[in-house]
Protein backbone atom coordinates (compact mmCIF):
# COMPACT_ATOMS: atom_id res chain seq x y z
CA UNK A 1 0.00 0.00 0.00
CA UNK A 2 1.50 3.30 -1.03
CA UNK A 3 1.09 6.73 0.54
CA UNK A 4 -1.69 7.74 -1.84
CA UNK A 5 -3.84 4.78 -0.83
CA UNK A 6 -3.26 5.45 2.87
CA UNK A 7 -4.14 9.12 2.41
CA UNK A 8 -7.35 8.15 0.55
CA UNK A 9 -8.40 5.86 3.37
CA UNK A 10 -7.64 8.52 6.00
CA UNK A 11 -9.59 11.10 4.02
CA UNK A 12 -12.53 8.70 3.70
CA UNK A 13 -12.57 8.18 7.46
CA UNK A 14 -12.55 11.95 8.08
CA UNK A 15 -15.34 12.53 5.57
CA UNK A 16 -17.42 9.69 7.04
CA UNK A 17 -17.06 11.01 10.57
CA UNK A 18 -18.02 14.54 9.51
CA UNK A 19 -21.03 13.25 7.59
CA UNK A 20 -22.04 11.10 10.55
CA UNK A 21 -21.74 14.01 12.94
CA UNK A 22 -23.59 16.65 10.97
CA UNK A 23 -25.99 14.62 8.89
CA UNK A 24 -27.21 12.25 11.57
CA UNK A 25 -26.28 13.26 15.12
CA UNK A 26 -27.27 16.89 14.80
CA UNK A 27 -30.48 16.08 12.98
CA UNK A 28 -33.25 15.31 15.43
CA UNK A 29 -35.30 13.63 12.71
CA UNK A 30 -32.76 10.93 11.96
CA UNK A 31 -31.44 10.07 15.40
CA UNK A 32 -33.29 7.53 17.52
CA UNK A 33 -35.32 9.76 19.80
CA UNK A 34 -35.61 7.76 23.01
CA UNK A 35 -38.05 10.00 24.79
CA UNK A 36 -41.42 9.47 26.34
CA UNK A 37 -43.12 10.32 23.04
CA UNK A 38 -42.00 6.97 21.68
CA UNK A 39 -43.25 4.94 24.60
CA UNK A 40 -46.91 4.63 23.84
CA UNK A 41 -49.19 6.26 26.33
CA UNK A 42 -46.63 7.52 28.85
CA UNK A 43 -45.52 11.10 29.06
CA UNK A 44 -42.31 12.52 30.39
CA UNK A 45 -42.03 13.88 33.91
CA UNK A 46 -42.70 16.14 35.70
CA UNK A 47 -46.33 16.08 34.59
CA UNK A 48 -48.98 15.49 37.20
CA UNK A 49 -52.02 13.30 36.75
CA UNK A 50 -54.18 16.42 36.46
CA UNK A 51 -51.91 17.98 33.80
CA UNK A 52 -51.91 14.74 31.80
CA UNK A 53 -55.69 14.47 31.77
CA UNK A 54 -56.05 18.17 30.97
CA UNK A 55 -53.84 17.84 27.90
CA UNK A 56 -55.07 14.41 26.73
CA UNK A 57 -58.77 15.04 27.42
CA UNK A 58 -59.32 18.81 27.30
CA UNK A 59 -63.10 18.43 27.14
CA UNK A 60 -63.53 15.89 29.95
CA UNK A 61 -66.23 16.93 32.37
CA UNK A 62 -66.80 16.03 35.98
CA UNK A 63 -69.72 15.76 38.39
Amino acid at each position, binding site marked *: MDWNQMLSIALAIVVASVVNRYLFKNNPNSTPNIT*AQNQGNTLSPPQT*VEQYVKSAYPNAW*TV
Partner: protein
Amino acid sequence: MARKIVSEAFWLTTANATAKTDAQCENFAIRYTFAPIWTYQVPVNNILLLKSSHHFYLHLEDDESTSAEWGDPQQVRLSVWDADLRKMQIIYQGRYVASKEMQDVEKMAVLDLIPAGQELKLEEGAWIYIEGMCDNGTTALYTIDVSDSHFSIETERVKPSLF
Protein backbone atom coordinates in the same frame (compact mmCIF):
# COMPACT_ATOMS: atom_id res chain seq x y z
CA MET B 1 -36.52 11.07 39.19
CA ALA B 2 -40.14 11.97 38.91
CA ARG B 3 -42.37 9.11 37.90
CA LYS B 4 -44.14 8.95 34.58
CA ILE B 5 -47.87 9.22 34.18
CA VAL B 6 -49.56 6.16 32.71
CA SER B 7 -53.02 5.81 31.26
CA GLU B 8 -54.27 2.24 31.34
CA ALA B 9 -57.41 0.14 31.04
CA PHE B 10 -58.69 -0.72 34.49
CA TRP B 11 -61.58 -3.07 35.23
CA LEU B 12 -63.13 -2.03 38.50
CA THR B 13 -64.45 -5.19 40.18
CA THR B 14 -65.98 -6.46 43.39
CA ALA B 15 -62.46 -6.91 44.76
CA ASN B 16 -61.72 -3.17 44.52
CA ALA B 17 -65.04 -1.90 45.83
CA THR B 18 -66.51 -1.74 49.31
CA ALA B 19 -69.60 -3.90 49.73
CA LYS B 20 -72.63 -3.03 51.82
CA THR B 21 -74.23 -5.77 53.90
CA ASP B 22 -77.44 -7.46 52.80
CA ALA B 23 -79.38 -5.69 55.57
CA GLN B 24 -77.97 -2.27 54.66
CA CYS B 25 -79.12 -2.68 51.07
CA GLU B 26 -82.57 -3.97 51.98
CA ASN B 27 -83.21 -1.30 54.65
CA PHE B 28 -82.03 1.42 52.33
CA ALA B 29 -84.35 0.23 49.59
CA ILE B 30 -87.38 0.46 51.85
CA ARG B 31 -86.90 4.20 52.22
CA TYR B 32 -85.27 5.15 48.94
CA THR B 33 -85.68 3.97 45.39
CA PHE B 34 -82.17 2.68 44.89
CA ALA B 35 -79.89 1.04 47.41
CA PRO B 36 -76.11 1.16 47.07
CA ILE B 37 -74.69 -2.38 46.88
CA TRP B 38 -71.04 -1.48 46.30
CA THR B 39 -69.19 1.81 46.48
CA TYR B 40 -65.75 2.71 45.15
CA GLN B 41 -63.78 5.85 45.96
CA VAL B 42 -61.07 6.98 43.54
CA PRO B 43 -57.69 6.77 45.36
CA VAL B 44 -55.34 9.70 45.94
CA ASN B 45 -53.35 10.74 42.84
CA ASN B 46 -55.59 8.73 40.49
CA ILE B 47 -58.10 9.91 37.92
CA LEU B 48 -60.69 7.59 36.39
CA LEU B 49 -62.14 8.37 32.98
CA LEU B 50 -65.48 6.88 31.96
CA LYS B 51 -66.77 6.84 28.40
CA SER B 52 -70.06 5.84 26.80
CA SER B 53 -68.23 2.96 25.08
CA HIS B 54 -67.04 1.40 28.34
CA HIS B 55 -68.63 -1.97 29.18
CA PHE B 56 -69.83 -3.34 32.48
CA TYR B 57 -71.86 -6.20 33.95
CA LEU B 58 -73.67 -6.95 37.16
CA HIS B 59 -74.56 -10.32 38.64
CA LEU B 60 -77.02 -10.05 41.53
CA GLU B 61 -78.47 -12.85 43.62
CA ASP B 62 -81.32 -12.75 46.12
CA ASP B 63 -81.17 -14.00 49.69
CA GLU B 64 -84.13 -16.36 49.66
CA SER B 65 -83.98 -19.96 50.92
CA THR B 66 -83.59 -21.14 47.35
CA SER B 67 -81.10 -18.56 46.23
CA ALA B 68 -81.64 -17.33 42.68
CA GLU B 69 -80.53 -14.58 40.38
CA TRP B 70 -82.48 -11.33 40.46
CA GLY B 71 -85.52 -11.13 38.22
CA ASP B 72 -85.13 -9.63 34.78
CA PRO B 73 -87.34 -6.56 35.34
CA GLN B 74 -85.49 -5.40 38.46
CA GLN B 75 -83.87 -2.00 38.01
CA VAL B 76 -80.17 -1.37 38.49
CA ARG B 77 -78.27 1.90 38.37
CA LEU B 78 -74.69 3.15 38.24
CA SER B 79 -74.03 6.64 39.50
CA VAL B 80 -71.01 8.82 40.16
CA TRP B 81 -70.71 11.28 43.02
CA ASP B 82 -68.30 14.07 43.84
CA ALA B 83 -66.01 13.64 46.84
CA ASP B 84 -68.42 15.43 49.20
CA LEU B 85 -71.40 13.30 48.09
CA ARG B 86 -73.26 16.50 47.17
CA LYS B 87 -73.51 16.16 43.40
CA MET B 88 -74.34 13.02 41.46
CA GLN B 89 -74.73 11.94 37.89
CA ILE B 90 -76.44 8.74 36.72
CA ILE B 91 -74.30 6.96 34.14
CA TYR B 92 -76.51 3.89 33.60
CA GLN B 93 -80.02 2.89 34.54
CA GLY B 94 -81.97 -0.02 33.19
CA ARG B 95 -83.43 -3.44 33.71
CA TYR B 96 -81.23 -6.06 35.30
CA VAL B 97 -81.63 -8.32 32.26
CA ALA B 98 -79.91 -5.71 30.09
CA SER B 99 -76.82 -5.49 32.25
CA LYS B 100 -76.12 -9.07 33.29
CA GLU B 101 -74.28 -10.27 30.16
CA MET B 102 -70.66 -10.93 31.12
CA GLN B 103 -69.25 -13.18 28.39
CA ASP B 104 -70.10 -11.75 24.99
CA VAL B 105 -68.65 -8.26 24.70
CA GLU B 106 -71.07 -7.54 21.85
CA LYS B 107 -73.98 -8.00 24.24
CA MET B 108 -72.49 -6.36 27.32
CA ALA B 109 -74.10 -3.19 28.57
CA VAL B 110 -72.33 0.15 28.14
CA LEU B 111 -72.40 3.36 30.14
CA ASP B 112 -74.89 4.85 27.73
CA LEU B 113 -75.97 7.84 29.82
CA ILE B 114 -72.56 9.41 29.30
CA PRO B 115 -72.77 11.52 26.12
CA ALA B 116 -71.00 9.80 23.21
CA GLY B 117 -67.54 11.09 22.48
CA GLN B 118 -67.15 12.69 25.88
CA GLU B 119 -65.18 11.61 28.91
CA LEU B 120 -66.47 11.76 32.45
CA LYS B 121 -63.56 12.56 34.73
CA LEU B 122 -63.54 11.23 38.29
CA GLU B 123 -60.84 12.89 40.34
CA GLU B 124 -59.44 11.58 43.60
CA GLY B 125 -62.09 11.20 46.26
CA ALA B 126 -64.98 10.88 43.80
CA TRP B 127 -67.29 7.90 44.13
CA ILE B 128 -68.87 5.28 41.90
CA TYR B 129 -72.05 3.73 43.31
CA ILE B 130 -73.40 0.42 42.02
CA GLU B 131 -77.05 0.35 43.01
CA GLY B 132 -80.03 -1.94 42.80
CA MET B 133 -83.73 -1.31 43.30
CA CYS B 134 -84.66 -3.93 45.87
CA ASP B 135 -88.28 -2.76 45.98
CA ASN B 136 -89.96 -3.76 42.73
CA GLY B 137 -93.06 -1.72 43.53
CA THR B 138 -95.67 -4.42 43.15
CA THR B 139 -94.92 -7.45 45.31
CA ALA B 140 -92.72 -8.13 48.28
CA LEU B 141 -89.32 -6.50 48.60
CA TYR B 142 -86.52 -8.14 46.77
CA THR B 143 -83.64 -9.35 48.90
CA ILE B 144 -79.98 -9.42 48.00
CA ASP B 145 -77.08 -11.69 48.86
CA VAL B 146 -74.16 -9.34 48.39
CA SER B 147 -71.48 -11.97 48.96
CA ASP B 148 -72.84 -14.06 46.06
CA SER B 149 -73.12 -11.07 43.75
CA HIS B 150 -70.42 -9.42 41.68
CA PHE B 151 -69.80 -6.79 39.04
CA SER B 152 -67.14 -5.35 36.78
CA ILE B 153 -66.89 -1.93 35.13
CA GLU B 154 -64.44 -0.95 32.41
CA THR B 155 -62.64 2.33 33.08
CA GLU B 156 -59.52 4.18 32.03
CA ARG B 157 -57.19 4.94 34.92
CA VAL B 158 -54.54 7.67 34.90
CA LYS B 159 -51.93 7.39 37.63
CA PRO B 160 -48.19 7.73 38.26
CA SER B 161 -46.24 4.67 37.14
CA LEU B 162 -44.73 2.39 39.74
CA PHE B 163 -41.15 3.03 38.56
